[in-house]
């Protein structure tokens, strides 16, 4: 394991210090916590929007803290859900009396920890709503199981819920918009290489020189299937077709596209993937309103990508286009 770190057990703290030092006019770290909040939190007359999860997904989630997106990000240990006390601190720091929306990726740990925090916050008289993101079509959806994971599509939830909250909408309205995004966003990913949790010291799985993992999550875990390496075109086709099977888009439908790098993928390769994705969508006469290419939700130094599609209507477009001023997403 070769990493630019000091102590593997202190990476999250070191990162948060380095981040707070980089953006003193944008962010604050709540003292004694791993919570990053907008420098001007709580913002009067505004619903607070809080997200978070394990660390190692940078720029998610602290990179989306700022005007028009999140009010706070709660940063757990690497790939480990943050604990309820931390989430509670975030909720308290951003609540201006209008309530707080929690945007949670669908992992048992995240759901349980955020739920416990919500219960504690409600007990302190704060209005809390939750939305659970489960955009990963690689995993079979079922109410009998854990269900689908939340991956890069979560960033669209941050963007749209954040934009509506910024306009002074009520908690119910912000929650409804977030849920609408969840209903309309689908993603799927693949990996060329595994990644190494610093404190674990070795990769989460192994891949041969000619193997890839398809249907990968964002926690260094193996995917749904190990296959032989394919061309970028074939990979884009596999992922996009699986997404389209699930979404049932029609001619003329409008979408936002995200080609997300998992950490070690050169931007060059993400553009090459986008070439095929844009060609396929054009062929199906699906209109691309906007394309996001870059690292939005990573998995440490994993090489690979995910594709997300968000089906849009006029109201979602308006919120997607609304201003945002965060480290990782500016409009």
């Amino acid at each position: 394991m070769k990493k630019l770190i000091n102590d593997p057990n202190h990476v999250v703290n070191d990162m948060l210090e380095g981040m707070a030092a980089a953006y003193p006019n944008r962010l604050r770290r709540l003292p004694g916590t791993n919570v990053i909040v907008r420098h001007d939190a709580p913002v009067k007359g505004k619903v607070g929007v809080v997200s978070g999860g394990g660390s190692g997904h940078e720029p998610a989630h602290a990179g989306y803290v700022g005007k028009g997106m999140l009010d706070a990000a709660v940063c757990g240990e690497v790939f480990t859900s943050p604990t309820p006390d931390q989430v509670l601190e975030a909720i308290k720091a951003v609540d201006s009396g209008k309530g707080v929306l929690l945007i949670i990726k669908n992992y048992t740990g995240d759901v349980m920890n955020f739920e416990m925090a919500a219960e504690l916050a409600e007990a302190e008289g704060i209005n809390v709503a939750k939305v659970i993101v489960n955009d990963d079509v690689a995993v079979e959806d079922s109410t009998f199981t854990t269900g689908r994971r939340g991956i890069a599509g979560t960033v669209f939830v941050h963007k749209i819920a954040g934009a509506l909250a910024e306009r002074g909408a009520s908690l119910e309205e912000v929650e409804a918009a977030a849920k609408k995004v969840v209903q309309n966003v689908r993603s799927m990913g693949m990996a060329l290489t595994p990644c190494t949790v610093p404190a674990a010291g070795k990769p989460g799985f192994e891949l041969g020189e000619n193997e890839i993992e398809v249907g990968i999550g964002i926690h260094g875990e193996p995917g749904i299937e190990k296959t032989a390496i394919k061309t970028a075109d074939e990979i884009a086709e596999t992922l996009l077709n699986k997404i389209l099977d699930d979404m049932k888009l029609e001619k003329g439908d409008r979408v936002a596209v995200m080609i997300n790098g998992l950490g070690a993928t050169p931007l060059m390769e993400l553009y090459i993937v986008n070439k095929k994705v844009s060609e396929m969508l054009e062929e199906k006469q699906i209109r691309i309103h906007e394309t996001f290419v870059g690292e939005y939700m990573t998995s440490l130094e994993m090489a690979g990508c995910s594709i997300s599609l968000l089906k849009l209507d006029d109201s979602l477009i308006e919120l997607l286009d609304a201003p945002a001023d965060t480290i990782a997403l500016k409009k």
Partner: protein
Amino acid sequence: MAFGVEQAKRWMSIANDHIQQQKQYLTELDQAIGDGDHGLNMARGFQEVVEKIASANYEDLGSLFKDISMTLIAKVGGASGPLYGTAFLRMSLALAGKKEADDKELIAALEAALDGIKARGKANVGEKTMVDVWEPVMEFLREKESLQVKEAALLAKEKMEHTKELEAKKGRAAYLGKRSVGHIDPGSASSHLLFAALAEALEG
């Protein structure tokens, strides 16, 4: 068999020793079908637990288990944090005000812990989670009506190994579907360590 604050502290201390020793092993189990942090999470949490309870004096089992629970909730994170945290929280409620617990009382408290795990995680037997250790162990103790902890620990081991054959339906391993078969569930392994530690604390 007397189970007081001293025994409970010994339980945690032995559990922590096991977890620190098996940290790498638990993490490897989690790397195979999860995200490779279970050993790290448990080691971080139980280290804090023993440090926290070492210095403090407890009047009753309830307040001791409350501290254990709160520490686990605040330090473990992931899925196992809220699950074990809730388990010990339920134990603390069951043992509130008690300086000592007899067999029946301790079994009832452990039963409450299992209920807490199931309420929090909504998992049932056969879904390849720690419930696959806890439920059969509690069935056994419930039936025996006496704290046959050594046998319980052996049963926990057997049930932990049995999780190898299961396909995960809950927790992170569920994303792997059939690929989860053939691997021991990490939470079942840490649960086995807890029962083994309990046996050692009471009989060792």
